């Protein structure tokens, strides 16, 4: 039994793996249309992680599953790859079983020792793109570590590895590719012995005893037969690079298809919107453009002026942010206080009180951070979540690189989603989807942006309907971008100048 829990690939979003830039895929495959069936009337944003690619890796103990799985992880080189070991799903033991385990009399190597139903639940939840908590098993207490789990969200590739990786039929049905790592049992024993004795300090006698009593019989009885479930059988010993490379090439081509489909979906949301009159802003009272007062116009002029020095630029962006936030907070949740006594000892019946504590915010790094100063000046102790979404420089596909969200984010009545500019709208779509996955309701979200293009806004509305409130400093219409020299609106410049780094 290997004590590897969940590998470090299993990324809390901050793990370095996630921020690694993937190699840019250079070849784009043309895909058949058969896989895309659209509901024209009900377009929806489908983020890439709703269909993670699931790889199952099985094989006897000591066959080298972990090293094959790690090889695949490093070779496909996609940031959102998660490696899960079935060891996390060992069943908690009763006191009596636990006692036997300490005497090395409990059989950890039979399928019944693993909670395959829980593993199925977790993998199918990941397959649906939901945030999923993977249990952590303590081999010291023979129980799940209480209150501790590893949350996984937004994975593109999930590798499930364990001796019974290819055993359970329900799990097999979830997998896109099944790999069996084969090795002669003598070799497995040799590897187990060196691993257990050298790295784990166990004694030879105990190891051989365990092998004879549990590991080998189970391997023969239960593990070997799962070979027939595999799509590919990989030799463990010697050079298996060619076999792994072949597999990785196959996996990569599937991933390319997925990303292509994602981009097509994004384009489709845009096509519908440019096919005019699909949704108009006038019919949507939840899209509010700031009244173009003298001050708003003058501030905007300062912001777009390329000769505006950074001192003034930062100052005016802060002012703009304050105006937008005040507007967004006009709908702050309120309650009535039966009687309020003023400092001059008069009473006000049914006084309106704001529940600023029911508001939270999420900033889209980096452009949303332009709001930070003003957010703190509006609701000083507001919780601030952050999402890092970057566009692939080659394809424009948005990618979620990190999410740091307030606890119980779904319990707030109003969530301000802060972003500098909506241009194509794709990163906003992804941000909203993440928040939905965290249980936030659309009608509780308010998107606050300085500038937004018509096309970006329409894409958001096409994808999510008109439940989300949107407060915009200035909407730039398609027509103006074409006719009135407003191409400046299609590049990201506010955060670049605000922070003074490219």
């Amino acid at each position, binding site marked *: 039994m290997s004590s590897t829990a969940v590998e470090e690939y299993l990324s809390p979003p901050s793990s370095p793996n996630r921020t690694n830039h993937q190699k840019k895929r250079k070849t784009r495959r043309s895909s058949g249309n058969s896989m895309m069936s659209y509901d024209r009337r009900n377009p929806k944003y489908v983020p890439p992680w709703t269909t993670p690619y699931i790889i199952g890796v099985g094989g006897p103990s000591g066959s080298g599953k972990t090293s094959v799985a790690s090889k695949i992880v490093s070779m496909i080189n996609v940031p959102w790859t998660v490696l899960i070991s079935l060891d996390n799903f060992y069943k908690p033991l009763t006191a009596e079983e636990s006692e036997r385990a300490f005497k090395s009399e409990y059989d950890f190597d039979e399928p019944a020792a693993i909670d395959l139903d829980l593993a199925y639940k977790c993998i199918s939840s990941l397959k649906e793109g939901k945030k999923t908590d993977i249990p952590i098993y303590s081999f010291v207490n023979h129980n799940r570590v209480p209150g501790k789990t590893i949350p996984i969200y937004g994975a593109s590739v999930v590798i499930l590895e364990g001796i019974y990786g290819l055993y359970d039929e329900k799990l097999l049905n979830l997998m896109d590719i099944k790999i069996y790592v084969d090795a002669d049992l003598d070799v497995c024993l040799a590897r187990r012995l060196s691993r257990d004795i050298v790295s784990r300090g166990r004694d030879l006698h105990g190891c051989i005893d365990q092998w004879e009593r549990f590991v080998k019989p189970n391997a023969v009885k239960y593990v070997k037969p799962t070979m027939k479930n595999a799509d590919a059988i990989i030799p463990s010993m010697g050079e298996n690079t060619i076999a792994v490379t072949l597999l990785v090439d196959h996996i990569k081509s599937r991933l390319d298809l997925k990303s292509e489909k994602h981009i097509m979906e994004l384009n489709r949301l845009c096509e519908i919107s440019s096919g005019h009159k699909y949704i108009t802003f006038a019919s949507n009272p939840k899209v509010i453009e700031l*009244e173009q*007062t*003298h*001050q708003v*116009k*003058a501030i*905007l*002029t300062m912001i*777009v*002026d*390329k*000769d*505006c020095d950074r001192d003034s630029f930062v*100052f005016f962006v802060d*002012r703009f942010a*304050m*105006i937008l936030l*005040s507007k967004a*907070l*006009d*709908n*702050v949740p*309120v309650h009535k*206080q039966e009687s*309020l*006594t*003023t*400092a*001059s*000892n*008069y*009473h*006000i019946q049914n*006084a*309106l*009180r*704001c529940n600023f504590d029911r508001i939270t915010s999420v900033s889209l790094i980096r452009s949303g951070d332009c709001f930070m100063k003003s957010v703190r*000046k*509006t609701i*000083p102790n507001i919780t601030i979540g952050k999402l890092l979404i970057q566009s692939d420089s080659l394809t424009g596909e948005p990618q979620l690189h990190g999410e740091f969200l307030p606890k119980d984010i779904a319990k707030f009545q109003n969530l301000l989603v802060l972003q500098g500019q909506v241009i194509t709208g794709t990163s906003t779509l992804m941000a909203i989807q993440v928040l939905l996955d965290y249980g936030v309701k659309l009608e509780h979200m308010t998107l606050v942006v300085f500038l937004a293009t018509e096309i970006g806004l329409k894409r958001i509305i096409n994808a999510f309907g008109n439940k989300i409130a949107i407060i915009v400093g200035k909407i730039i219409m398609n027509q103006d971008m074409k006719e009135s*020299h*407003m*191409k*400046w609106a299609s*590049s990201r*410049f506010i955060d670049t100048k605000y922070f003074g780094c490219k």
Partner: protein
Amino acid sequence: MSTEPYKNVSLLPQTNQLVGLYSIIRDKGTARPDFIFYSDRIIRLLVEEGLNHLPVEKKDVLTHTGENFDGVGFLGKICGVSIVRAGESMEQGLRDCCRSVRIGKILIQRDEETALPKLFYEKLPEDIADRYVFLLDPMLATGGSAIMATDVLIKRGVKPERIFFLNLICSKEGIDNYHAAFPEVRIVTGALDKGLNEQKYLVPGLGDFGDRYYCI
């Protein structure tokens, strides 16, 4: 969008948020840090509203993409004039919107002998006659000191239509008194209270603004 309940009076939109902010600062139980913070928030809204009444001029600028942008620029010089002491609480709000704005001060106290307001001190920008003036005083009750302060400004050559009198709370009585003297001055306010009591305090009011902001 602000409303104009009376001629030359701009009242901030009475949104849930604004009314809720006033509940906080009116509340007897609100401690000073919160009183200051939430007063400042209201003041900021008043200043933004006041600034919107200033004229702008056409200003074309070049964007980073090299395109021409038909924008507007601020026109004319402004300054703030606060009525010491409570009015000084509004200076920061003005400065938060206009970084290097000049701020004049006027001190008016009740004369012990006559019981009438008396001008004790004034320090104003030299060229105030050429400026738009934001007169700052948080409470407009009877309007006695505001009228005297405005009188000082007019005597220094400021045009009445270039004066904006910013306050947090006013009453109809105060507006009428003030506009009887200076009908062309625009009052920018966030709350219209019911009236005044026998001691000429606003009802329901919020107590002594200066004390709550600076001392208690």
